């Protein structure tokens, strides 16, 4: 037992003495949370609107005021005729043109011209602006139309302000644990192979299992520190209401961390150089997590083959479960499926990794 403790101590020395890596390990999650939470946002702000209206009627003035009052829009000017819209957009002065009919007071006809070079942005802009117009007309026509007129009333549940940070935090958690556990473990095991110390260890009476468990424990501890950092930041800085059970959130995360450690071990048995381990983890793990886990792009919108592929990506299940627990505040009974899939994957990976590791002796 003493050699095992000495081994864990040695691994901590390796990490603690490599100041740069250490800094990356502890600061990266913080930076990612802050960048994704604040800087990168899928919300669209500062949309420039130009108004095209042949005559300034009372209704037009009221609508323009409503738009200006909205935090997403700023009205940058008025154009006398629709022919100038093209130039305004090309010169980057306007994103949207709101074209009022000359007889707007009579026929209430209005046209939205949107720069759709980025379709996602254009769609969002259209929804925002239609929303404002719709609200205005509903208000105006109250009492004129029969009360049972058709309309849709929209309520955004769980994330009423549509904050994108709600969406990103689970994604970042899915990404960071894979990066830290899988990449760092595989790199640190492969480093020993590369430097030649692994050979000396294997020629000694230490059990191979002890060697790899000693490697995993420090990264496990660091990941738990990161988990705490992320949750604290999410709660206090991004103000995400942690409505679900904290216990289950941590349990789920620990399962995922163990899974990532097993992945790292598996990678280390396949590759022989640190560079290969690094690229293997980056390309083989980080890209799928970014692209296929539903972190950035909804899985439902993917082509069927990619949807099928996304099933084998652990982060997909982890991120989905974290969303349910953390943001929707669902009880643990709603994530049993994800929990069991992750547990199954973890066991599978551990068995394969250990088998592979033994074969190499």
């Amino acid at each position, binding site marked *: 037992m*003493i*050699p095992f403790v000495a*081994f864990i101590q040695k691994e901590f*020395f390796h990490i603690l003495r490599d100041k740069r890596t250490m800094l990356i390990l502890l600061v990266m999650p913080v930076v990612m949370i802050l960048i994704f939470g604040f800087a990168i946002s899928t919300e669209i702000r500062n949309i420039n609107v130009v108004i095209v209206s042949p005559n300034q009627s009372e209704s037009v003035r009221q609508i323009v005021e409503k738009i200006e009052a909205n935090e997403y829009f700023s009205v940058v000017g008025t154009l006398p005729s629709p022919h100038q819209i093209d130039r305004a957009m090309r010169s980057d002065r306007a994103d949207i043109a709101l074209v009022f009919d000359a007889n707007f007071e009579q026929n209430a006809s209005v046209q939205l011209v949107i720069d759709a070079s980025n379709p996602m942005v254009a769609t969002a802009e259209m929804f925002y602006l239609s929303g404002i117009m719709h609200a205005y007309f509903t208000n105006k026509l109250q009492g004129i139309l029969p009360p049972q007129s058709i309309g849709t009333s929209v309520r955004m549940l769980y994330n009423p302000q549509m904050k994108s940070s709600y969406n990103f935090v689970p994604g970042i958690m899915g990404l960071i644990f894979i990066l830290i556990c899988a990449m760092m473990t595989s790199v640190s095991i492969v480093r020993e192979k590369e430097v030649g*110390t692994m050979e000396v260890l294997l020629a000694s*009476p230490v059990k191979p299992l002890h060697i790899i468990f000693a490697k995993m424990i420090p990264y496990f501890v660091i990941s738990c520190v990161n988990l705490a950092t992320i949750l604290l930041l999410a709660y206090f800085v991004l103000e995400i209401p942690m409505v679900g059970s904290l216990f289950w959130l941590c349990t789920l995360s620990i399962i995922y961390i163990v899974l990532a450690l097993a992945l790292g071990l598996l990678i280390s048995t396949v590759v022989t150089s640190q560079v290969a381990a690094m690229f293997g983890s980056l390309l083989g793990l980080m890209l799928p997590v970014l692209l296929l886990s539903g972190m950035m792009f909804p899985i439902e919108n993917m082509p069927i083959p990619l949807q099928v592929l996304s099933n084998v990506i652990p982060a997909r299940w982890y991120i989905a479960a974290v969303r349910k627990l953390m943001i929707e505040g669902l009880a643990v009974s709603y994530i049993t499926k994800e929990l069991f899939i992750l547990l199954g994957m973890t066991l599978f990976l551990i068995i394969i990794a250990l088998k592979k590791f033994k074969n190499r002796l």
Partner: protein
Amino acid sequence: MKRETVIKVDNLTKRFGSFTAVDSISFEVGRGEIFGFLGANGAGKTTAMRILCGLSIPTSGNATVAGFDIATQSEQVKRNIGYMSQKFSLYDDLNVWENIRLFAGIYGMEARDIATKTDVLLQKLNFESERNTLIKALPLGWKQKLAFSVAIFHNPKIVFLDEPTGGVDPATRRQFWEMIYEAAESGITIFVTTHYMDEAEYCNRVSIMVDGHIAALDSPNNLKQQFEVDTMNEVFQHLVSNAKRGE
């Protein structure tokens, strides 16, 4: 003088697919002997050595190291040997004392023994001032001497040295061999591979591997007489010139 046998190799063979790296070799090494294991690159000496250290399993044949069977008792074999790899075998980012403590701990030494023995060792090597120096800050020669000291720290019956003096200057190599002699006198068997023919002259007996076979095995003097040459270098050249495998 007949020495007690500590390594006994009998028709040992290792194949990788269709390639036979080690082809049915047999030899014995006695206690306290300095046994040189020579061969060109790719002749199979590292493979043979790895089998004897329990790092690799032979395809066929038997071998006992320190009285234990390498196939079935690798655990006991590992307890009784020391190993210094071709690549550097201490941890760069641990200091001298931490390396000693780690490796001694691995071999099951008691903490108190480790502490007292470390003091003796560092005093002998004139290393006391470097006790808390990180290994990466030491010159290569010192590192190699320290690595050897660590490999024999737990008093193994046999120590396997895989090209221990690669890249080390002649003066340090000389000191290194003095340490090897000292260890051999204390009863530790030395099994050493090298590319330096002057070092081959220092060995009690030398085996030269060519294409997976042992082409010659005797004391340096007998080998030189047998091939009617003056140096081990010429013996080696003579044998290796017939080799089919290149690097």
